[in-house]
C-alpha cells in the first residue's frame, strides 16, 4: 500500500481553469489519477479535459464524491481556497501554490488541525504513488512502483533522486514533497510515521535542506525506534547564513538551520547521510539487500 493517496482517492483540482492547473490535470489523468472535479468560482458548468468544473467545493463534493484536493490557486486567493477544502474535510489538501503569505499559512494549518485534515505544502510539488494516484506536478515518467518511500522539502532534487532510484530499478511506494516554505503542513515526522506503518515501504529516502529544525525533529523520530532504514541527503552545506536560498524557508537564522546540525542529528539517529545526491540510490540499494 502507498501512503496518503491510492487508487481510491478521488481528486478535486481547485483553480482548474488556470494554465498550470489545466496542464497538470492532463498529466495527472495520464498517470491514472482519478481527477473527478475542478472548481473555479464563476466557471461552474464548464469542463477541463472532460473533468466537470464547479463554482464551490461543496457542490463538487456533493456531485462527484471528491475525497482530496489539489490547489493551483494564486497566492492571493489560496488561503480562502484551502479553508474551503478543509471546511469540507477533503484529505489530504495539497497546496501547490508558491508565495503564500506566512500568516495565511499559519491560519490554514490551525484550521486544518482543528478539522483533522492533513495539509501538504504550500510551495510543494505534491505527492505521487506510482501505479495508483498522483496529486501535483511531479513528472510522470520518472517513477516506478516499488519499496522506497521518498519525503522531501525540494521538488527538482526529488526528481533527481527518484530518477536515479528508478534507473537502479528501485521503485517507490509514495514520494511526498513537503514544500519549501517556512510554514508547511505535513512534516518529516508525519510522513515517517506513515511510511513506518506502510507494508509496501521497506526503506525511506529523506531529502532535507537548510533552514528550520524539521530534519532534527525527524532525527529524533528515527532515533525513537523507526523500524526501517533511512537514507538522507541535505542540500545547502555551503550556503551562507542569512540568505534565502531560493526557497522562503531555506535560510540559516542565527545558529539555527545549518546543514551540519541536520547531518549530525540524522547520522547520530542511525540514518545513512549521502555526501552527494548521486550516492543516494547506492546507499538505498545496500540497505534493501541487507
Amino acid at each position: 500500500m502507498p501512503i496518503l493517496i491510492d487508487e481510491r482517492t478521488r481528486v478535486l483540482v481547485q483553480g482548474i481553469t488556470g494554465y498550470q492547473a489545466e496542464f497538470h490535470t492532463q498529466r495527472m489523468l495520464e498517470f491514472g489519477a482519478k481527477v473527478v472535479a475542478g472548481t473555479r468560482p464563476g466557471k461552474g458548468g464548464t469542463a477541463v479535459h472532460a473533468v466537470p468544473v464547479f463554482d464551490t467545493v461543496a457542490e463538487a463534493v456533493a456531485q462527484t464524491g471528491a475525497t482530496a484536493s489539489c490547489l493551483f490557486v494564486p497566492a492571493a486567493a489560496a488561503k480562502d481556497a484551502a479553508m474551503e477544502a478543509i471546511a469540507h474535510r477533503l484529505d489530504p489538501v495539497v497546496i501547490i501554490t508558491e508565495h503564500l503569505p506566512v500568516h495565511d499559512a499559519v491560519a490554514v494549518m490551525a484550521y486544518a488541525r482543528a478539522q483533522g485534515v492533513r495539509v501538504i505544502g504550500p510551495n510543494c510539488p505534491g505527492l505521487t504513488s506510482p501505479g495508483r494516484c498522483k496529486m501535483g506536478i511531479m513528472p510522470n515518467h520518472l517513477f516506478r512502483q516499488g519499496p522506497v518511500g521518498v519525503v522531501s522539502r525540494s521538488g527538482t532534487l526529488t526528481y533527481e533522486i527518484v530518477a536515479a532510484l528508478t534507473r537502479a530499478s528501485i521503485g517507490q511506494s509514495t514520494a511526498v514533497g513537503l514544500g519549501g516554505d517556512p510554514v508547511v503542513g505535513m512534516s518529516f515526522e508525519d510522513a515517517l510515521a506513515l511510511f513506518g506503518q506502510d507494508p509496501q515501504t521497506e526503506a525511506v529516502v529523506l531529502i532535507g535542506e537548510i533552514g528550520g529544525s524539521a530534519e532534527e525533529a525527524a532525527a529524533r523520530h528515527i532515533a525513537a525506534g523507526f523500524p526501517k532504514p533511512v537514507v538522507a541527503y541535505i542540500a545547502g552545506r555551503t550556503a551562507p547564513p542569512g540568505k534565502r536560498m531560493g526557497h522562503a524557508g531555506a535560510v540559516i537564522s542565527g545558529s539555527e538551520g545549518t546543514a551540519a546540525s541536520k547531518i549530525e542529528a540524522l547520522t547520530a539517529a542511525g540514518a545513512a547521510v549521502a555526501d552527494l545526491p548521486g550516492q543516494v540510490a547506492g546507499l538505498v540499494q545496500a540497505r534493501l539487500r541487507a
Partner: protein
Amino acid sequence: MKLHEYQAKEVFARYGIPVQRGVVISRPDEVDRLDLRYPVVVKAQVLVGGRGKAGGIKLAANPGEARRHAQAILGMSIKGERVTRLLVAEAAKIEKEYYLAFTLDRAARRMVAIASAAGGIDIEEVARATPERIAKHSVDPSLGFLPFHARELGAAIGLRGDHLTAFAALAASLYRLTVQEEAELAEINPLAVADGKLVAVDAKLILDDSAAFRHKDRPTNEEMTDLERAAREAGLSYVELDGDLAVIGNGAGLVMSTLDVVAHFGGRPANFLDVGGGATTENMTAAMEIVLRKPGVRALFINIFGGITRCDDIARAIAARPPRVPVAVRLTGTNEEEGRRILEGAAIHAFIGPEEAAQEAVRLARGARS
C-alpha cells in the same frame, strides 16, 4: 525583507509603541540643525548585526561630539555594508533592559511571543546559557494574543505594578503590528525602563515578502544587491556569493545541492540562480545575462533536470547566445535528446551526470584563472 532600525521605529510609533525621539541624517553637518536633547546616541543604519561591536554606535554629549562621531561612522564599512545613514536619537537613562519579540515558530506553525528580563544582549545566547530567563507564549491564531496572555508573559519575567500594565499594552500593540504588517519578526531589544517608563531603544522588523502584494506602502528592499533585485524583477531567484563560477539550475533544492557538489570538487560558486520550475527560453536567456554580469566570473555551470522544464527550451537559449565564459552544461530529463542535438550544433557538449559536469565546470574555472 528586513527594515532599518529607523524604518522599524517609524512603524512601531504608528502602533503607539514608545520609541526615543530621533532623526535620520546622511551628512555630518546635518547634526547642527537637529532639535534634540543631549546627550544623543549616533547609530549606524545597517541591516547586518553587530554594529555596536564594530564601532557603529556612539554616545555624544554635545553637537560637536555628535558631528565628530557622524563623520567617523558615515562611510564606514560594517561586515561589508557601507554606512550611508545615521539615526541620531535622544539617549535614554536606562535603568533596566528587557527583551520582547513576536517571531515565527516554524515547528509549531504559529507565531510565538518571547520575553526576557535579560535584555540588551543576544537572545540566542540567553536561550542557550540561561533558558529559565526566557518566557514564551505560543499564539493560537484563532484566539489571537489576548490581554491576559500579555500580563502572564510580563509577570513571568518579573514585571509588577505600572511596568506590568505598560508592558501588557505594549506587547498587545506589537502583536497587532506583527499581524497587520505581516511581520515574520518584530523584536525590541532592549526594551528599556528609562525615566520610569518603557521605551523601545532598538527595533528590528522583518516583513514577509510573500505578503508584499497587500502592502503597497512598504519601503524599498535594501537587503538585495542590484543583481539580486534585477533577478527578482525577472521572476528569478538569485543569491550573490563570493567565488568565480556562476551557477544556474532549476529548483531551489537542486541549485543548493549544485553549490555543494561544486564545493565538494574544489570549486567556488560566484552566485546562485534558480530559474524555477517550467523555465522557458526567455527565463534562461535572462538568467545567463544576470549571472554573467557579476564581475570576476570565470566560468558558468548550468545544471538542469528537466521535469516540467524542457531541455530543448534551455538548449535553445544557450545556443542562441553562447556565454562569454567557458560553460559546462548538465542537461537531462524531458526532451533531453533534442536539447543535446541543439547544443551540439553550437559545439557545446552536454553532460548527463551532475557530478561529472560539476568537475568539468570546476576545471574550466581553474583553467580560466591561470
